[in-house]
């Protein structure tokens, strides 16, 4: 009874949130629209990072590679194709890259996988840079930008689909297989889970949404080069936001990404010179004092409230 009530509640919360979001361009300033687009981008990156890394425990630092692939796909195609097609192509390009890389490297255990993904971003960025300088003769590219409202609605669309996919994976057999890989890979293997395939497919699915987000965001930037598209920041921010929010429930990464990107917005405008420094200090404090993130704090409150109500009865 309790869980059904919970589910009902979160469903209503989600619908309200979506209704509010859809109305945003109608009654808010264009600054707010851009700000919310930015927050949604981080929410999408964090949620899609959590699809793969939260249940399996493999810490991936390759998000920037997939995001950047989407950005470049959009840079190449946006002048000739409509926005939704570009987004799907950007996502599919990342999906393919992630699937190839994942099938090759997901047998690396623990930190070796992290090291690998960390280097992957640098590899793609350096190769692309070399290619642009030596073969095409340019470094930056100019993109025909779409208007802010269209970008905003595309981002809302990606957000809804990533949320839906996370939810479906979480409650499916496939999600169970992922969790069992996180608990003990050997045991999962012995109980009939095709470990390599499950890992590679999930890795690719999470990369699809990162690529889609990249393809959308590049429309807003108008000018891109390999350094901005494959900025290593897009790799660690999702990890950090997921740690800050927690990964046990679906609301947690959303909350983490929202709070953190608002914080970033505030710090960059108030302390432009010290913002990364403050950011680093916050990061250290979060890891040291909130190992389970916001979610840990919220769940603790919930338990306390539940206990108190039991006592009263």
């Amino acid at each position, binding site marked *: 009874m309790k869980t059904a009530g919970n589910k009902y509640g979160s469903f209503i919360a989600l619908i309200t949130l979506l209704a509010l979001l859809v109305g945003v361009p109608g009654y808010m300033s264009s600054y707010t629209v851009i700000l919310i687009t930015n927050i949604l981008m981080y929410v999408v990156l964090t949620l899609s990072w959590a699809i793969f890394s939260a249940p399996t*425990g493999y*810490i991936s630092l390759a998000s920037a590679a997939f995001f950047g692939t989407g950005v470049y796909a959009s840079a190449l195609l946006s002048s000739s194709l409509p926005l939704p097609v570009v987004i799907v192509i950007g996502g599919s390009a990342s999906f393919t890259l992630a699937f190839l890389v994942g099938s*090759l*490297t997901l047998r*690396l255990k*623990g*930190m*070796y996988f*992290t*090291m*690998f993904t*960390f*280097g992957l971003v*640098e*590899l793609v960025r*350096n*190769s692309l*840079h*070399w290619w642009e*300088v*030596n073969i095409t003769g340019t470094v930056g590219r100019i993109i025909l930008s779409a208007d802010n409202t269209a970008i905003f609605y595309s981002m809302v669309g990606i957000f809804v689909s990533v949320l839906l996919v996370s939810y479906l994976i979480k409650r499916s057999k496939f999600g169970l297989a992922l969790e069992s890989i996180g608990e003990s890979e050997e045991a999962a293997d012995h109980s009939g889970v095709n470990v390599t395939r499950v890992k590679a497919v999930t890795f690719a699915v999470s990369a699809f949404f990162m690529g889609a987000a990249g393809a959308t965001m590049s429309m807003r930037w108008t000018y891109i080069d390999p350094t901005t598209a494959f900025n*290593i920041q897009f790799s*660690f921010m999702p*990890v*950090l936001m997921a*740690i800050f929010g927690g990964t046990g429930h679906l609301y947690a990464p959303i909350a983490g990404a929202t709070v953190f990107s608002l914080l970033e917005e505030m710090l960059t405008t108030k302390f432009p*010179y*010290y913002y*990364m*420094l403050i*950011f*680093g*200090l*916050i*990061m*250290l404090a979060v*890891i*040291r004092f909130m*190992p389970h993130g916001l979610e840990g704090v919220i769940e603790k409150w919930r338990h306390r409230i539940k206990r108190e109500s039991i006592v009263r009865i």
Partner: protein
Amino acid sequence: MLIKFLDIAIGGLLMGGIYALIAVGFGLQYGVARVLNIAHGEFIMLGAFCTWTLFTSAGVTPLVSMLFCAPFFFAIGFVIYRIFFTPLRASSESPAAFEGNSMLASFGLLFVVQNLALIIWGTPVRGYSYLAFPIHLSGAVFSANRIVTLIASIILGSAFYVFLLSTRTGKAIRAAAQDPDAAELMGVRINRVLALCFGFGTMMAALGGLLLSMTSIMLSPVMGMQYTLIAIIVVVLGGLGNIKGCFIGGFILGLVGYIVSSSQPGLSMVAYYVIFLFLLLVRPTGLLTK
């Protein structure tokens, strides 16, 4: 042809010495202290900038400032571990959880150190020239400072090797590398030993940066990341916690870097990475393991 070959061989060796030293420090921090230190390169940058400041404003030559830098950076690393990582290790649920948390924490450290450096030294690139006269080695020409850096890194590496093998503290470090819990049960003061290792790692990063700054490269506060990547690759190449392996890996990487950058300068990082990828897939435990 022979001269060209010698040129490449010696040029690669000269760069490889520094790579090896950097990697020994990184391997110590990850292999024993269990911190995959993404901020390793930032301490290389700090070492280089401290040397630059001492040399240009106080006239202290790099080899003398080594006497100051070594204990200073050792202390910084030791204190960072004691203040931050020791309690983090105690509060983490498992060794694997600590590895994940400490890696993310080192990202935080990276931002703090890099942005402090940006605030102190600003964005313009710096450089100085020291011992830059040419030396002829059987036909090939190298500047003297590169040869000094190679000799210095070999001396530092072997001194540390002897330290690990022949002192009580060295023995404690080797025990902690094998199994921290068992070492603690045998009476090793584990938190102190792990902090020592982190301190030594920071010290070697700073000394690597000091030697690197002598080779007339351009210094900037954002230079650290590429050396972190090089350290990771060399450690994977040589095997974790293997000093000899680090030197062999460093020399291989130096050679490859020298060959590739003499024909296609933009591709040396890509070449490193291809080696890394190949090795991770074929021998993830390193070249020297049986």
